[in-house]
C-alpha cells in the first residue's frame, strides 16, 4: 500500500438538506482528516447541490471515504479527482487603502500583471478581486502585503472535471 498523500478534489452531488454539512464533515472529522477547503453551491442540475472539497489523502483512504460519503442517504453521487483531471480556480478579495493606489506606483503594476480586477474604489479603500490557482493568489498576497492589506479573504476551490461526471444521466435513469 502506498503511503503517499495526494491532493484530491472531491465533488459531491446532494439533495439540499439542512444537516448535510454536518454529516459530511463528520466523515472527515472522525478519521482525523483536515478539509483544506470546502464550497457548496447549486449545480448544473435543478434542485441538486454540488460540493467541492479539497483534501490531502492516500488514495486508499480517499476511496474508502468516497464510499462513506456515498452511503449517506441524501448524497446522490461522489467523485474524487487529481489536479490533473480538473480545471480548478479559487477566488479572493483584497481590501486596501485607497491612498496606496495613488502613492505607490508599484501597486498599479502588480494589479495589471496579476490580472486582478478592481471591484470598487472609494476615498478610503479599494477592493481587488483575483481568481486563479492557489499559488497565483498566494503570490499576489505576498506582493501586496508589503504595502499593507486591510482585509483579505479567499474562497474554497471550485472545479470542473475534464471528463464527464455521469450524474445527470444517472438521475434520469
Amino acid at each position, binding site marked *: 500500500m502506498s503511503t503517499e498523500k495526494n491532493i484530491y478534489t472531491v465533488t459531491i452531488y446532494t439533495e439540499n438538506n439542512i*444537516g448535510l454539512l454536518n*454529516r459530511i464533515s463528520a466523515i472527515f472529522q472522525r478519521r482525523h482528516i483536515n478539509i483544506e477547503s470546502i464550497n457548496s453551491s447549486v449545480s448544473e442540475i435543478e434542485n441538486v447541490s454540488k460540493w467541492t472539497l479539497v483534501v490531502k489523502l492516500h488514495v486508499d483512504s480517499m476511496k474508502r471515504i468516497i*464510499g*462513506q460519503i*456515498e*452511503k449517506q*442517504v441524501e448524497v*446522490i453521487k461522489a467523485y474524487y479527482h487529481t489536479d490533473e483531471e480538473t480545471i480548478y480556480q479559487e477566488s479572493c478579495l483584497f481590501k486596501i487603502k485607497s491612498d496606496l493606489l495613488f502613492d505607490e506606483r508599484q501597486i498599479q503594476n502588480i494589479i495589471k500583471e496579476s490580472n486582478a480586477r478592481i471591484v470598487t474604489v472609494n476615498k478610503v479603500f479599494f477592493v481587488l478581486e483575483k481568481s486563479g490557482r492557489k499559488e497565483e493568489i498566494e503570490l499576489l498576497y505576498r506582493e501586496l502585503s508589503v504595502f499593507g492589506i486591510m482585509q483579505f479573504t479567499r474562497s474554497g476551490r471550485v472545479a470542473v472535471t475534464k471528463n464527464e461526471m455521469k450524474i445527470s444521466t444517472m438521475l434520469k435513469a
Partner: protein
Amino acid sequence: MKETETIQIVRKETATTERISGSEAVIKCLLAEGVDILYGYPGGAIMPVYDELYKYQDKIHHVLTRHEQGATHAAQGYARISGKVGVAIATSGPGATNLITGIADAQIDSTPMVCITGQVGSQLLGSDAFQETDIVGISTPVTKWNHQITKASEIPEVLAKAFYIAKSGRPGPVLIDITKDAQFEEFDFKYEKCKGIRSYKPVPETDKNSLKAAAELINKAKKPLIIWGQGIILSEAEEAFKAVIEKAGIPAAWTILGVSAIPTSHPLNVGMVGMHGNYAPNVLTNECDVLIAIGMRFDDRVTGNLESYAKQAKVIHFEIDPAEIDKNVKTDVAVLGDAKSSLKALLPLLNANSHNDWHHKFKALYEIEFEKVIKNDLHPTKESLTMGEVLKEINIHTKGEAAIVSDVGQHQMVACRYANFNTTKSNITSGGLGTMGFALPAAIGAKMAAPEREVVMIAGDGGYQMTIQELGTIFQQKVPVKIVVLNNEFLGMVRQWQQLFFDKRYASTEMVNPDFVAIAKGYHIDAKKVTKREDLKNAVKEMIDCKGPYFLEVRVEKEGNVFPMIPTGASVSDIRLE
C-alpha cells in the same frame, strides 16, 4: 395488491376529511407502519404525543422503561428478534441525549430503529431554552439518517421516509426530532408509504460477472472457508445460505452477530471466528485458499492483525454496503447485493463438493481446543462453577430453542461460544459497540416481540448494574424474561486483560455487589442464588419452568479466563489456548 389499493383509497378519503394535530399524526403514521409496541419515557417537549398515546392505547402499546437508554435497547431487542423496525421515543434535552448509546449501538450493528424525540418550540430553537439540545447535531454521526420537523405538515412524509430508510438496504437507526409547536399544529393528514428516495439506493445491483467469478474461484478451491455475519439474518438468507454450503461442502464459521443463522449442530458449522472464537476457524483462516465472506465486515475483533490476515487466500466478499468492500481486507471478487438473492443466484453455478480432507483439519483442531479449553469449561473438575457449565445447563433445559440475549464481557463470549441455537434471530448481543447494560432492556424488547419464545438474558455483575432499573419495566409490564447473572465479583473481561497484559494490577475492576436476589424480589420477581454445582441443574430447571420472570444469580469462579484468545495486534493464527 387489491387489498392494499383499497386501504390506500380509504385512507385517502378519510385523510381529506380529517384535520388532526401533528401529535396525532405521529401515532397514525406509526400505526400505518405496523408499529404495535414502542418504548420510551415522557417529558415536557413530547407531551402532546404522549397525550395521543393515551388516546390510542388500545391500538399501540407504549412501554415505559426506566431510562431512555433502556428504551433504545428494548427497541433493538424487539428489532433483532423480529426483523421489524424497533421504535423508541423520548423528550428533548436529557431524554434525547440518553438515547445516544442505543442509537450508536444500532448504527454499528445495523439494527433497524426509529427514534422520535420532542424538541422545544421552533421559535425557541437556538435560545438555550429549557431542555433544548441539538439532538440532530449530536446524533448525526451515529444515525443512518436524521431530520428535524418544525411543521406538522412534514410529519407524514418524514416519518414514512424514516421507516423506509431504517429498514431498507443495510438497516440502521433514524432519529426524527419534532418541535413542540409542530406537535400541536393542525393540518390535513394523509399518509403514503415511502417507496424510494432518488439519492438513496438501498440495494446495489448484483453484477452477473462477479457472481461467475466468485463461483469459479469457489469451484476451483481446495480449501475454501466461509465466514458469515449478520447479513444472512438481516436479508433472511438462511435457507439460501444453507443450500450453498451444503452443495459446495464448505466449512462455515460465524461472527457473533451471525450465529443462529444456521443451527449450532449443523455439520458444516465450524464455530466462531475472532478474538475469542474457536481455534480451528481462526487458525485455518490463514490456511484456506479461498475465503468467502458473506454479510460481514471484517471487524478488527474478527481479523486480528490485518497485515497477517488470510494473505494466502483469494477473498470473495458478498456485501450489501459498497462502502465495506476493501475497507479492511482487499477483496479479489466483490459481489454486491442482497445476500439472499446473490446466494440464490450463486447456487446453480456451484459444483457439488465435499472437501473431506479439509474438514478433517477442522475436526483435528477442534479436538485440541476441546482438550485444552472446552472440556474444562463445560465439564470442570475444579470446585468453583464456570460460566460454561451454566450455559450447558441452559442448553439442556431450553433444548436450544431459546433466544439468548447477552451483555458485554466474559459471559458474552462464553454465551456466544457455548449457547445452542436451533432457530435464526436468536443471538441478541451488542457486537460492534460492546455496550454494557444492553442485555436486560434488549431482553424485554425481544420477549415482547416474540412472546412465544423463551428469552434468556445473560449478564455479568457489572453490566447488569448498568441498566438494573429495567427490572421495574419487567415487573410493571409482566415480561416473563429469564435473567441470569454470572457473578464473578469482577469486571471480568477487563480483569482478564489486567491479568494477562498489566501484571495483575487489578485497577478498579473488583466489585462489591449488593444482594441481587433481594433486589429482584424487591421488584416481586422470583429469584434464586446458586453457589454450588449440585444446585445448578435444579435452579436452571426451576427458572425455565417458571411462567413469569425469574432471576438467577450464579456465583462463578472469580478469576476465570476466556480462551481461546487472540491478543490485540496478533494474527488470527497465533490464537492462544491458555
